[in-house]
């Protein structure tokens, strides 16, 4: 019996309105010609033009992308190792501590992670003279640390689901454990690794709090630039920047969703066909 409740559908409708009206409003006002960001003064695209001619914005975007690319790649390698280790090695010395270390950054308030990273880098510079100046390196190190645990969570979830027997079959056929890892395990979990990388990339690109603690003079990422402007209030050029960012990410997520949905439907159709042909 299908139960469709009017109440639930109404809440669902209002819920989505709540989630999307602020963003839509922001997009609309990015085309506002008035300097007052919240009062409509006619249609204009001038804020977009001024955005593209603003060298600060472009520099900040490039720095953000550079940090996100490097940190998400290293975080994916380390996070995949951690996820595999947690799923496959159930007994080793210090496993409890290890699993604690892998989950703690997930729920650690960002302020604490940020402040402890900053103090760590200052003390380290004090003791060993490195890192000399804070900026790209320190931000990247901090981003790797907190985004690798997201990767390991995704990889671990996928590993737990995967059939152990296929790895045992490979070993039975003569592969050494590390060969099994490259021949079997990694290809099987590659979708999880990819989504882990995407998540790490997005988290790095988006982060304000930890970056604001670990940055140094002259290293302004895009979120930091927005942060410093937004603290002063709502401005139309931020509306334009926000619109571009939201639409880019939104288009990416929707495209990824559609591709995944199509692939899944394709797979189901193939399975049905195979089933029918072999009947």
């Amino acid at each position: 019996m299908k139960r469709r409740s009017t109440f639930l559908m109404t809440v669902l409708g209002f819920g989505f309105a709540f989630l999307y009206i602020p963003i839509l409003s922001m997009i609309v006002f990015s085309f506002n010609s008035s300097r007052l960001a919240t009062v409509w003064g006619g249609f204009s695209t001038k804020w977009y033009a001024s955005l593209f001619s603003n060298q600060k914005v472009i520099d900040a975007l490039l720095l953000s992308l550079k940090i996100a690319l490097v940190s998400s790649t290293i975080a994916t390698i380390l996070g995949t190792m951690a996820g595999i280790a947690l799923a496959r090695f159930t007994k080793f010395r210090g496993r409890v501590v290890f699993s604690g270390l892998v989950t703690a950054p997930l729920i650690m308030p960002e302020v604490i992670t940020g402040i402890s990273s900053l103090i760590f880098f200052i003390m380290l510079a004090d003791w060993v003279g490195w890192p000399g100046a804070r900026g790209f390196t320190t931000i990247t190190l901090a981003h790797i640390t907190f985004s690798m645990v997201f990767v390991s969570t995704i990889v671990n979830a996928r590993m737990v689901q995967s059939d152990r027997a296929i790895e045992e079959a490979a070993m039975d056929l003569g592969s050494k454990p590390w060969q099994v890892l490259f021949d079997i395990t990694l290809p099987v979990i590659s979708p999880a690794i990819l989504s882990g990388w995407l998540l790490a990339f997005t988290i790095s690109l988006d982060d304000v709090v930890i970056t604001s603690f670990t940055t140094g003079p002259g290293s302004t990422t895009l979120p930091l630039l927005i942060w410093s402007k937004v603290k002063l209030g709502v401005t139309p050029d931020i509306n334009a920047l926000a619109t571009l960012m939201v639409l880019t990410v939104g288009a990416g997520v929707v495209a990824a969703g559609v591709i995944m949905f199509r692939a899944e439907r394709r797979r189901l159709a193939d399975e049905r066909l195979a089933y029918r042909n072999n009947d």
Partner: protein
Amino acid sequence: MSAGRFSRWFDRKGWAGLIIGAPYVWLLVFFFLPFLIVLSISLSTNTPTAPPFSFGGEHPVINPSAYVRILTDSLYVRAFLTSLFNAGVAALLCLLVGYPMALGLTRVSTTWRNVFLMLVILPFWTSFLLRVYAWMGLMGKNSWFNGLLTDAWNILVPMDWAVKSVPMMHSNFAVVLVMVYTYLPFMILPLYASLERLDPVLDEAAMDLGSRPAQVFRDVTLPQSVPGIIAGGMLVFIPAAGELVIPTLVGNASQPMIGRLISDEFGQARDWPMASAIAVALLVLMVVPTMLYSHFQAKAEGSK
């Protein structure tokens, strides 16, 4: 010969050691060690040196005065209470809005469900900062949204109480509202995951035994979704309690939350021991109970 021995060792143990070791060492150095430093600084004395703390003087090993201040100074006590209150209300509101949404998601056709789920997840991938910013636009004095609320208010209340605009920005109300907005997906997803797992036959069994739909919800659906409620509640409550961005942008500066306080003590006041002590206190208050809970939860699941 030794190369052969090495490769045998590597095949059996070495590769495993590498896979465990690399992330382990990384997290110990870049996550655990910094935290230990913070912990020790929280027990030091604030000095006008660089870095601004030292061990020695009156309290050669341990100086607990920062912790004493947290417990006695009303500024800190109030900040903790404000944080807990705002995060608690936000989590509760997220539950009230998110539960029917998650339940609604389980009741629509598969195609629509995929679309709706994508709509729930989409904000995850868009900038957190910009989602907060979007509300700044709506809550401001001159915005269409504020105008709408102002008109509604002026129609509903007597003339004497009429206002020019609703004072939403820079208040706890604004903080909670934006928290609900930004953290709502964190509530919906675990709730949906636990509701979707439930066997609809159990609903039918309860109806068959004489329960009306409302009683089915109370007796069958709700108790079985408790793990989802707890997971969602923690996912909202914990980051909300330590939130820095939201209170900075839309909050009331005279009623700071803990995150703001840590940042201010560290930056403006240059009181590292105090900032560290507040951070440790926040951690003990929130993160440790969570980790213990999930640890025992996992154990209980395992024994089933």
